[in-house]
């Protein structure tokens, strides 16, 4: 935990309300998100019990598996889920805009620009908590290798149409959610925690109700007490007043309410099956319907508070102004969405169980690059985030106190002005360290020359032996940092108007780069070198697509 966020949390403890840790919204929030509040059955690997799902705040669709151990009922649930999710996804797939992408020409090996489609917007799936994201992944994994009767007439327990496709999409959402700064699939607890610090721990912030109580307590209450209530308060029946955001349910709910209801449902089904004539069957169907209605009511009672909490959280997030770089990152999400749309259309097989060596390395490289991009962009978009970087010695801000004209020592001298900034920050500047500032949205680079402490005059000249600048303990003492500006000043001998800071300007330099360079290209999977096991080969590709083994009691 950084000192900045610790301080914000402590302020929250004292004030009884969450404190902001961001002044702008750093994540994209769709105008039409699909909210998904799932419940799972305890002890079963990803066996859904039910869910609320939909895009309309006032009209969630309730999906329930009245007996989670019944494969047909689970398939019915998944079919219904596909009927909601896939049309939602499709509604974004058709609206495209032309775009350009650089590709390697397979014949010449040259990098060429090609015209491609880019979806104008992308779907956004919102779940209550981090565990919800895991559950989306699990659902995706459980469905994408299923075979429908159409795909394979011999398959035991064929899956209904669309179920494998839903699995592929949920897998894509789940995988994209691992990319820092992405917004295709988001957990509300994570979104809120990014922007507010509560007076409780990260662990406790996983309870959406408690988190919201800190951020937006009802009139006249204190966040701390409300959060405690949300977390622990139980009614006379021993049930939690604010059931957790799931997908796991409270054992007291399972044992006292759900288990008896499922048992009644089972009994009603058995009785219906044993009915001896139509009249009896009608009666018993009524019993079964009633029993099912009871389970549905129970599932709704556990999910509806969380559903409402998700929309409440969305209101709070939408009230924040969007950060300047959020749209840039959302465009990357649109590319990701468009790419998967194209793979599905092209008839490519589902994502394999395990990444091969090259895919894994490419994903890791992408995520590290996106993490660096996110860190830089959030700081550039938000003075409060930048304040944290300044405290950590990774940036410094201050007033320009001197600008000295200087030139490079080449035959055609270019401007290399020396800019001195007076700052109270303590940047970790090494010898000739590169620093960057934003000039009209583009990074301008400069090189550290020297730092002098204002009151003592102690100099750290170009860090003679690579030493960091250090301000000792004299808090409040100013540091005069001189840097040499290196670029973005035009081609002439004199810098272009406005390209060099002027005396009196307030500017901020970062020690981190603003833009990320692409990494080296890795070999194609079929060229995997011997150090990494050689090419995966045909056999691996076949096993990767094999359906899961099924047993009678399969949970999915």
């Amino acid at each position, binding site marked *: 935990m950084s000192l900045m966020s610790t301080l914000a949390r402590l302020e929250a403890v004292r004030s009884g309300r969450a404190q902001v840790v961001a002044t702008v919204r750093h994540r994209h929030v769709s105008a039409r998100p699909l909210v998904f509040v799932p419940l799972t059955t305890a002890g079963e690997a990803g066996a859904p019990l039910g869910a609320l799902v939909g895009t309309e705040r006032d009209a969630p669709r309730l999906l329930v598996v009245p007996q989670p151990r019944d494969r047909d009922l689970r398939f019915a649930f998944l079919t219904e889920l596909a009927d909601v999710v896939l049309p939602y996804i499709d509604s974004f797939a058709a609206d495209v805009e032309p775009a350009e992408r650089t590709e390697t020409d397979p014949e010449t090996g040259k990098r060429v620009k090609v015209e491609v489609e880019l979806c104008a917007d992308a779907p956004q799936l919102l779940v209550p908590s981090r565990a919800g994201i895991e559950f989306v992944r699990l659902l995706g994994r459980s469905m994408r290798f299923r075979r429908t009767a159409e795909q394979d007439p011999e398959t035991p327990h064929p899956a209904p149409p669309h179920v494998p496709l839903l699995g592929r999409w949920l897998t894509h959402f789940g995988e994209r959610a691992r990319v820092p700064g992405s917004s295709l699939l988001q957990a509300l607890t994570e979104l809120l925690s990014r922007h507010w610090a509560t007076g409780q721990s990260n662990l406790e912030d996983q309870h959406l109700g408690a988190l919201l109580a800190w951020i937006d307590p009802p009139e006249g209450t204190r966040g701390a007490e409300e959060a405690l209530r949300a977390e622990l308060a139980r009614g006379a029946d021993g049930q939690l007043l604010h059931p957790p955001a799931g997908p796991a349910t409270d054992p007291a709910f399972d044992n006292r309410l759900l288990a008896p209801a499922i048992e009644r449902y089972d009994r009603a089904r058995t009785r219906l099956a044993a009915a001896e004539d139509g009249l009896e069957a009608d009666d018993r169907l009524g019993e079964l319907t009633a029993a099912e209605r009871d389970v549905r009511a129970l599932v709704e009672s556990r999910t509806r508070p969380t559903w409402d909490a998700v929309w409440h959280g969305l209101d709070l997030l939408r009230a924040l102004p969007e950060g300047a770089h959020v749209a840039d990152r959302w465009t990357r999400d649109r590319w990701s969405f468009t790419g998967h749309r194209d793979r599905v259309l092209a008839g490519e097989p589902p994502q394999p169980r395990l990444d091969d060596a090259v895919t*894994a390395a490419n994903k*890791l490289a992408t995520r*590290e690059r996106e993490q660096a991009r996110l860190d830089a962009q959030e700081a550039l978009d938000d003075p409060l985030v930048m304040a944290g970087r300044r405290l950590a010695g990774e940036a410094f801000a201050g007033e320009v106190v001197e600008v000295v004209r200087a030139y490079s020592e080449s035959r055609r001298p270019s401007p290399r002005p020396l800019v001195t900034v007076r700052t109270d920050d303590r940047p970790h500047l090494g010898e*000739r360290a590169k620093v960057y500032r934003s000039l009209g949205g583009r990074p301008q680079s400069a090189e550290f020359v020297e730092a002098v402490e204002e009151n003592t005059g*102690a100099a750290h000249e170009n860090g003679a032996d690579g030493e*960091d600048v250090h301000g000792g303990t004299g808090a409040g003492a100013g540091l005069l940092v001189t840097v040499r500006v290196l670029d973005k000043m035009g081609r002439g001998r004199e810098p272009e108007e406005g390209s060099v800071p002027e005396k009196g300007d307030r500017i901020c330099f970062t020690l981190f780069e603003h833009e990320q360079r692409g990494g080296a290209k890795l*070999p194609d999977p079929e060229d995997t070198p011997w*150090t*990494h096991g050689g090419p995966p080969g045909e056999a691996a590709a076949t096993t990767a697509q094999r359906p899961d083994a099924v047993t009678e009691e399969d949970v999915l």
Partner: protein
Amino acid sequence: MTTVHDTADAAGGPAPAFDPGAEAARATDAILRDTLHGGHRGVVVDSPPGAGKSTLVVRAALELAAAGRPLMVIAQTNAQVDDLVVRLAEKNPDAAVGRLHSNDADPYDKALDELPGVRKSAKAGDLAGMDIVLSTAAKWAHVKGVEPWRHAIVDEAYQMRSDALLAVAGLFERALFVGDPGQLDPFAIVGAEQWAGLSYDPSASAVSTLLAHNPELPQHRLPVSWRLPASAAPLVSEAFYPYTPFRSGTGPGDRRLAFGVPSDGSGPDAVIDEAAHAGWGLLELPARHTPRTDPEAVAALAKVVRRLLDREGASVSERAAQPVPLTADRIAVGTAHRDQAAAVRAALAELGVTDVTVDTANRLQGREFDVTVVLHPLSGRPDATAFHLETGRLCVLASRHRHACIVVSRAGVPDLLDAHPSTEPVQLGVTVKFPDGWDAMMTTWDHLAAHRVRDAR
């Protein structure tokens, strides 16, 4: 872990029959034989601290080149590449050496410009035909469309990530992998749990992927540390290399450290005398929770360094017939964090000390000094984190010295370790790395405690 102690105890001081020179030569010969004449595509060499890894790399490169087999050398940082280039040129000024460098400003050490046999370029094509071409893994990864080299040497292979090896392995047919398994592991700035347990986990070390896929490759070990004195090798071997022990190349009396100016009775002087005598010294400050830049600990570190210089130290070793003065360039201060290093530099500057190296464990990797002064990673901390418990960090800090290592710490480290919650998650299929940081901390502390001087301040 009794087994650990048993194995390590066997590696205690050099037994009478142990001839370090002969042992090391035998190991080197076997490595070169496998590299030049063996049938395997890869050879792995584990090198404990100061065991002559660079010497081995230079020798293997020159022998391959002399046999008419040009090769590429992959190191991890530009400083490592430049250092190898200089050593190669020193050893054989006639060798045709290419330094492949980046397009950044100042891409290589200016000292290379003085070496006539060394050609520098940012394009691999310009260096075609050179006997030995060296660069960083990051630069090599951008080299495309060239004929693969028949040979490569991968230096610091344990600090190289698996994905970095994946990017360059297509450039060579076979390779010698050299590195120190006890130093800091590579890391990723994002979670990579998704691939934990896979043989090619991109965030794992290059060597673990290589051996997972090619378990039959010959693995060698350099058995002798020429850097660590007889007082240090047993502890470092036991604490950090429990299953691959090594010994010191020198005996108990071979290295000596003496001071012309007698002790003034202060804590720093007492710990200096203890370390001069025993090879280790622990200057313990009263227990207290402090932020990372604990002013008293920083001041104590600076004072120890100041006194090391003031007391006219001289070292005796196998390297010179006469005692060699202990000068600032032979002393280093090691810390866990950059801000600690910065604070120590400032404190040293106030005491008029400027030429002593002060750096973090990460940056001290591969370096060597006569005396090191180390701020214990857990000193003053209210809690121990995975970062502070990382085995490699302490290993680097405790294995940079030829004569003596002085550790400065707040009291209370064992209590902190005892109270440390051990609820680490476990990933299936991931080989457990030994030693555990927690165990290594305990082992080293128990040893250091025997050389404790309490600072009364």
